[in-house]
């Protein structure tokens, strides 16, 4: 299940985000993730931003390991387990995509696949600032209608992407909303879509160790994010007391999200 790959391409997407591409022929579906092992460092869950034979992960600088990943040169060897987890149902015809920050990484391959299938897709992307907008161009060239919000107003609307979502939902009919980003953001998306009965699908994160549905590290209510997720219909998780509030630390303790 574990394989070792070499980084064959490194793309700086934003000042804090880098995509690493590697060849791994194992089949994967949009929404799935891998456990990416940086030898001598950590092994982390990373969504597949590219799901074909030349796979890719798009990594945002967060803590120590992710920062170090940003600097890994082409040729670096990495361990890869997976792909793991659930994926997006690509059958809806009219899709609203809501990506916050690096959350867009997991949505992009799903968007490409749906658009290639003939669905229409509007992408609402949020970022702190223009330079941090992720995959705007990628989504546009795949055929998506892209709208943008930045905290500082350097691109698109000033403010949170959730403001855009309210309006998009009011203006046009959608069959589904796909969202990935901070849980508070996703909660707002769910709140906006609920009255209009548009189903929401969320991709969520929890601390992961085994990624095999065994160790309980990623427990979220009755679910294990590594096998029951990371892609969930919102109705299964939005009402859990944990959602948007707590997560589990590596020790298994509940801590504020």
């Amino acid at each position, binding site marked *: 299940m574990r394989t070792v790959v070499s980084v064959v391409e490194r793309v700086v997407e934003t000042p804090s985000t880098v995509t690493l591409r590697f060849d791994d022929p194992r089949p994967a579906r949009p929404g799935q993730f891998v456990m990416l092992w940086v030898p001598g460092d950590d092994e982390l869950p990373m969504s597949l931003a590219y799901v074909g034979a030349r796979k890719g992960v798009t990594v945002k600088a967060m803590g120590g390991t992710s920062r170090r990943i940003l600097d890994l040169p082409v040729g670096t060897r990495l361990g890869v387990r997976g792909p793991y987890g659930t994926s997006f149902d690509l059958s809806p015809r009219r899709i609203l995509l809501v990506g916050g920050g690096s959350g867009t990484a997991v949505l992009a391959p799903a968007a490409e696949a749906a658009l290639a299938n003939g669905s229409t897709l509007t992408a609402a992307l949020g970022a702190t600032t223009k330079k941090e907008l992720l995959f705007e161009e990628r989504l546009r060239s795949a055929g998506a209608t892209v709208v943008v919000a930045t905290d500082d107003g350097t691109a698109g609307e000033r403010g949170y992407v959730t403001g855009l979502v309210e309006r998009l939902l009011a203006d046009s009919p959608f069959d589904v909303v796909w969202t990935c980003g901070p849980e508070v953001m996703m909660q707002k998306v769910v709140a906006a879509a609920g009255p209009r009965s548009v189903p929401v699908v969320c991709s969520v994160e929890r601390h992961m160790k085994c990624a095999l549905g*065994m*160790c309980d590290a990623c427990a979220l209510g009755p679910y294990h994010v590594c096998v029951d997720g990371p892609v969930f219909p919102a109705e299964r998780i939005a009402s859990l007391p944990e959602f948007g509030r707590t997560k589990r630390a590596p*020790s298994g303790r509940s801590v504020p999200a």
Partner: protein
Amino acid sequence: MAAVGVELAGIRLRNPFLLASGIWGESGESLKGAYAAGAGGVVTKSIGEAPRDGYPNPTIDTYEQWGMLNAMGLPNPGIEEYPREVAVAVAAGVPTIGSVFAGDADAFAAVARRMASTGVLALELNLSCPHAKGLGSEVGSDPAEVERVVRAVVRAVTVPVIAKITPNTADPVALGLAAERGGAAAVSAINTLRALAIDLNLRRPVLAHGLGGLSGAAIKPVGLAVVWQLYEALKIPVVGIGGIRTVDDAIEYALAGARAVEVGTAVAFDGIGVFGRLAAELPPRLDALGFPSWGAAVGAAHPAPGAAVRTT
């Protein structure tokens, strides 16, 4: 159809399949989920005095269907936090066994006392984690220390105490006898075997901790041997663990002497649904093998007392 209820150390279980410690055992919801999936009961993650993050990732490596290596490093929320998790399972009526670990007899007794107060039906003492320094198998490989720890815990609590024996020993029977002398109500065996995986391309051990513990099908023959030997030597019941994935695996453990069994790694390969399958398949399989009940199979491969094993 064959009856599959069992009584273990005074606990009634609807079937002999317990969730093994360390699997689905950190959160109360998960313990509930394992029981809902069909387990006869659950053993919690091993809980210690203080929260522990465990070792860094990678903590897991898998082999083809026959095995798995882990060095989780006993992550756990600590005995101050954990009672609120176990309470979820206890409140839901899940027969729950609380697993605890510590570095010495006093600490074991302290954690055990707190765990016992949550309403768990029994305690399992993890005397056998093969890869955590100063915890588990270093204590657990010395019979005198095992006896001391078990006795201290038995004095500290009123629930039955199950001692989980390490297979990383020259003499598992000595450890089992020590636990029995210490007052254990049962022993369980085995924990994982000390093991290592190396990545050829990366030229390093796969697990961040280096050494880990082997589980799954590969260790079933070792678990059967330990259970066989313990059954021959002890008066208290034995809980069989190691590589159980099918009812046939479980019945082999019964024949070797296991009163109940724990299932761990199979959850990674087959999902938690493995418990429902095991529970459903056990009665007809016992029927087919001619056993009127699970209990009738327990120890059935041992020669009757006084009988020679071979007829020649």
